[in-house]
C-alpha cells in the first residue's frame, strides 16, 4: 500500500501547469466572448464539480463563482459537507436548493401520487436518477438568470465517453473545462490544485442511493477504464493491440458498446434537412462571433 491518494496510470499523466493555464484562459475566453462575468456551478461534493469550482475560482476569482448545492433527501450528508468544505475553502458565494420537493412532487412519496400520476410509479432508480439530474439542470439554469452567470459543465471525459451521464441533465452546460480529462486526470489536476484530500480519496458516486459507487455499478475501476479508453480512442489501438496491452477482450468489447451506445448523448440532435441552409449541416458559424455576446 502506498499513501498516494489515487492511482494515476503513467500514460495518462498530464502536465498540470499547462492544463491549468489552458483551462483558465478557456474559462475567461468563454465568458468574455459570451458577454458574461459570472458563473454558476452545481457542487455535488464530488471531485469533478469541486475541481471545476477550483478552476473557475483560479481563472476569474471566487467572487465571480456562485456554487449551488442541490441535495435530494436520499443524498449522503457527507456529500453536502464536502461541498460546503469547497465553498469555505474558495470563499465563493453559495446557496442550498433542495430538490426533494421537485422530484417527489413528480413521482410522489409515501404512497401519495405525484404529478406523474398513480400509474407512473413505482419509478426505477434510473428514472429517478435521470429526473433528479434534470431538476438540478433546471435549477442551475434558473439561477444562471438570477446571477447573470453561465452554467459551467462538470462532466469528465470518462463518463462522457461511456455515457454515464443524463442527457439534458448533468451534461447540460454553457461550456465545459474538464470534458477532455479522464477521471484519473481529474484526480491528478485536483491534487495539483489543492482540492481537499477527502474529496480526492473518496469513491466516486452518483449519490442516488446510499452506498452507491460508480465503480461498483459499472463493474470497473477508473484507472483501468481510463487506460482502456485512452488506448482505444485517443491512440486508435486495434483489438489485437488492446490484447497485447493486457486488456480483457470481453471488457474491451463491452466498453466499445457503451461508447457507441452513448454517441447520441455527445451530439446535437439531427435536424431533417429541408431548406437551403440548415443549422449544423451547411450553416456553420462559430458559437461566439461578432454580435453573439450578451449586451
Amino acid at each position: 500500500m502506498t499513501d498516494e491518494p489515487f492511482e494515476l496510470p503513467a500514460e495518462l499523466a498530464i502536465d498540470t501547469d499547462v492544463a491549468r493555464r489552458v483551462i483558465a484562459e478557456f474559462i475567461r475566453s468563454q465568458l468574455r466572448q459570451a458577454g458574461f462575468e459570472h458563473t454558476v456551478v452545481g457542487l455535488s461534493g464530488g471531485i469533478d464539480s469541486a475541481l471545476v469550482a477550483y478552476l473557475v475560482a483560479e481563472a476569474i476569482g471566487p467572487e465571480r463563482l456562485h456554487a449551488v448545492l442541490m441535495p435530494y433527501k436520499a443524498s449522503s450528508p457527507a456529500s453536502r459537507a464536502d461541498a460546503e468544505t469547497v465553498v469555505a475553502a474558495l470563499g465563493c458565494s453559495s446557496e442550498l436548493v433542495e430538490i426533494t420537493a421537485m422530484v417527489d412532487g413528480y413521482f410522489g412519496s409515501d404512497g401519495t401520487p405525484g404529478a406523474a400520476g398513480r400509474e407512473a410509479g413505482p419509478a426505477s432508480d434510473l428514472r429517478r436518477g435521470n429526473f433528479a439530474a434534470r431538476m438540478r439542470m433546471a435549477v442551475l439554469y434558473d439561477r444562471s438568470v438570477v446571477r447573470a452567470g453561465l452554467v459551467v459543465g462538470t462532466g469528465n471525459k470518462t463518463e462522457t465517453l461511456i455515457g454515464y451521464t443524463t442527457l439534458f441533465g448533468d451534461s447540460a452546460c454553457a461550456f465545459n473545462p474538464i470534458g477532455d480529462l479522464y477521471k484519473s486526470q481529474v484526480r491528478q489536476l485536483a491534487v495539483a490544485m489543492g482540492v481537499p484530500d477527502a474529496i480526492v480519496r473518496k469513491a466516486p458516486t452518483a449519490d442516488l442511493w446510499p452506498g452507491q459507487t460508480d465503480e461498483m455499478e459499472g463493474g470497473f475501476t477508473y484507472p483501468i477504464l481510463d487506460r482502456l479508453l485512452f488506448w482505444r480512442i485517443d491512440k486508435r489501438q486495434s483489438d489485437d493491440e488492446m490484447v497485447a496491452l493486457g486488456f480483457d477482450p470481453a471488457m474491451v468489447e463491452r466498453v466499445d458498446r457503451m461508447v457507441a451506445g452513448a454517441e447520441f448523448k455527445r451530439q446535437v440532435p439531427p435536424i431533417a434537412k429541408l431548406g437551403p441552409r440548415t443549422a449544423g449541416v451547411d450553416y456553420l458559424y462559430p458559437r461566439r462571433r461578432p454580435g453573439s455576446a450578451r449586451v
Partner: protein
Amino acid sequence: MLQRVTSLRIALAQIAPRLGALEANLERHRALLDEARERGADLVVFPELGLTGYQLQDLAAEVAMRLDDPRLADLAASTRGLSAVISFVEESADHRLFIAAGLFEDGQLRHVHRKLFLPTYGLFDERRFFAQGDSLRAVPSRLGPGIGIGICEDFWHLSLPQLLALDGAQILINVSSSPGRDLAATNEVGLGTATSWRTLMRTYAQLTTSFVVFCNRVGVDESISFWGGSEVIAPSGQALFSAPFYDEGMYVVEIALQDVRRERIGLPLLRDERLELQVRELTRIIAERAGMATDSNADADAEAGFDLAPLRGPVRVPDLGEGPR
C-alpha cells in the same frame, strides 16, 4: 571578401486575435506596428489570420478582403519604415477565398503568399472553407536577404522550406494558428504539439541553413487554445529566442545576418542539392501515379495507376478474423 556585419531586429507579435472582429484586429495591428517601430524593429511578424481569427467557418466570406481593399492600403500605410508579415482572408476577383499572408514593406503590399496546404483532418476543416494557393515564391526584401513565407501547415510538408531556400530565401517565416493538444506529461514542454513544432523548426533551419521565424498565436477560439511559443532559430538549428507559451506579447529578437553565410560556407547543403535529380524522380512518380508509366512497386498485373491487382479466378476467402487490418 569583406562582409558587412548586419543585424536585423525581428518583432514577433504573439497576439490573440478576436474571432471575426476585423476592425478591432486591424486597429490592434496598427498599434503594434507603431510599437514595433518605436522599439527599433525592422521586421514585424503577425500570426496566421491575425486580422480575422482562425475558427471562422462561414464567417470567412464575411471578413474576406480583396487585394485592392482600401483597408489593406490603409494598413500598408502603417508599415512605413518597416517590413511586416500580416495574415488575412483574401478574396480573389473570381471569389475564391484564401488564407493569405502579405509581405508589407515601407507602405506597400509587396507580396502575397496563399496557404498551399489546407489541413482537413482531425480538428481541422480548412478545405471546406478555403481554396488552396498554387504558387510559392521567395521574394527580395528591403531588409537585404530574400524572404520566404509559409502558413502553418505549409511547414508540415518537407518540400516547402526547401523550395523557399532554393529560390533564394535566407529568412523562412512561418505564421501559424496552431492549436495546442496532447498535454501528456512525457512531452518535453508538456504539450505534444509544441514538441513537434519545435523539432520541425530546428530541423528546417539546419537543413536549409536559413533563419526560421515562427510566429504562433495565443488565445482561444471555441474549443481550441493556441499555444504561442513563437521562435527565432539560427541557420545552425539553434534557437535564438523562444517566446512563452500562451502569453500575449510582442518580443523583439536581434539576429546577425552574416550567420547565414557562415553556415552555408561551412555546411554547403544547398550548394550540393540535386534539383535535376528531384525533378527527374518526381516526374517519374507523377507519371506512375497517373498510370502513364510502369510502377515497379505495383503488383505485376495491377491496372495502370493502381498498386494492387484484384484477386482473380476462384479463390478461397481466408479467415482473417475480426477487427481492422
